[in-house]
């Protein structure tokens, strides 16, 4: 390699390394802030002030869903299977909303400790399956989630994998 090329390569590598380190350290420092939502455990640990506008991510707890019946007002609990957060919401829920579904809610915790949601979003998992296969699996008594988990980890789908 000619000397001036060697020098050029050195400059390119130096700039690339410096830049990667800058970005890496910045992202590392910000990593808590980059997370889109708090988990119910973080809320239970008091990381969130009442009235603070936040997002919480979790699963809709089985058996927790209550609908007012005469209005769009609903109550349910978001859980990460360690802690629950009671959630109140008035509005239209996404199509995928159901018990056991991963969700992200936006809003704030009120004085009574209830999370008043202004928006409810359904989190979709990465598993696709045809309706027929799913029905066949259910008929055979195999839970598709367990079945699907053979390729993935056993952590709840809404949490990032542990590093």
């Amino acid at each position: 390699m000619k000397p001036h090329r060697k020098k050029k390569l050195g400059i390119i590598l130096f700039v690339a390394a410096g830049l990667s380190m800058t970005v890496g350290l910045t992202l590392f420092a910000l990593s808590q802030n980059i997370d889109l939502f708090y988990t119910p455990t973080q809320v239970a640990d008091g990381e969130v002030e009442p009235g603070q506008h936040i997002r919480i991510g979790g699963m809709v707890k089985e058996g927790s869903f209550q609908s007012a019946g005469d209005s769009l007002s609903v109550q349910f609990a978001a859980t990460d299977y360690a802690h629950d957060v009671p959630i109140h919401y008035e509005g239209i829920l996404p199509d995928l909303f159901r018990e056991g579904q991963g969700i992200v809610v936006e809003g704030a915790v009120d004085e009574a400790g209830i999370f008043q949601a202004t928006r409810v979003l359904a989190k979709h998992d990465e598993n696709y399956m045809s309706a027929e296969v799913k029905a066949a699996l259910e008929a055979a008594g195999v839970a598709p989630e367990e079945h699907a988990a053979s390729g993935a980890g056993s952590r709840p789908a809404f949490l990032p994998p542990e590093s």
Partner: protein
Amino acid sequence: MMNWLYQLASPKLFYAMTNRLVVWLAVICTVLFTIGVIWALLFAPPDYQMGHNYRIIYIHVPAAGLMEGCYYLMSLMAFSYLMWQIKMADIVAEAAAPIGAMATALVLVSGALWGKPTWGTYWIWGDARLTSSLIMLFIYIGIILLREAFESPESGAKVSAVLTLVGLVNIPIIKYSVEWWAVLHQPASQLSMRDTAANPPEIWVPAFIVGFGMIAFFFWVLTLRVRNEILFRERKAQWVRQLFDGSPQHA
């Protein structure tokens, strides 16, 4: 092999060697897109949760692959241009940028159209995957604009090559954003060979066909754009003049 590469690095030889190639790429692209899209839209089974909504992945995922792949190629070209002043590398980088920008726009739009019925929103600020993809679009547009911002083509080429290499840091951020941080966007699917598992072949095979079609599309459009750019840059060269001898405007 090296000899063949050297020939591709000469604009004149590249032009001569790709005469047939563009036709072949057009045919391959059309065939793969036709098979892939018909299979994906008509024959792939509806998803058990999302019904037909999920079919957007057959555009979204291949487009995302093109967004990344195009950037890898542009980075390689930018590096080659800075390192060895290979003119062809700069031509390829310039020709590829708008295709990558288009793919990124397609990723964002198709994702938003899927997000509304699935998540309940077109867009969510603060999601690392969504934000880093939007930044990718800005990087592509920045690379295109920066080149034009200089009087001399050489300065524009050099500075846009540097920006291309700088923007490379965003690629791993896009890829791993769904693993490093808590986000709304789902992680990459674990494809399965079994028909009874999640993500069986009946769902992902059409996606791969569209994906290969997307690769053919990319190289087809890229080759056309590169040939165009070669003619423009070499318009004063003898061989280009000869090429157009007898055409009305040069008669």
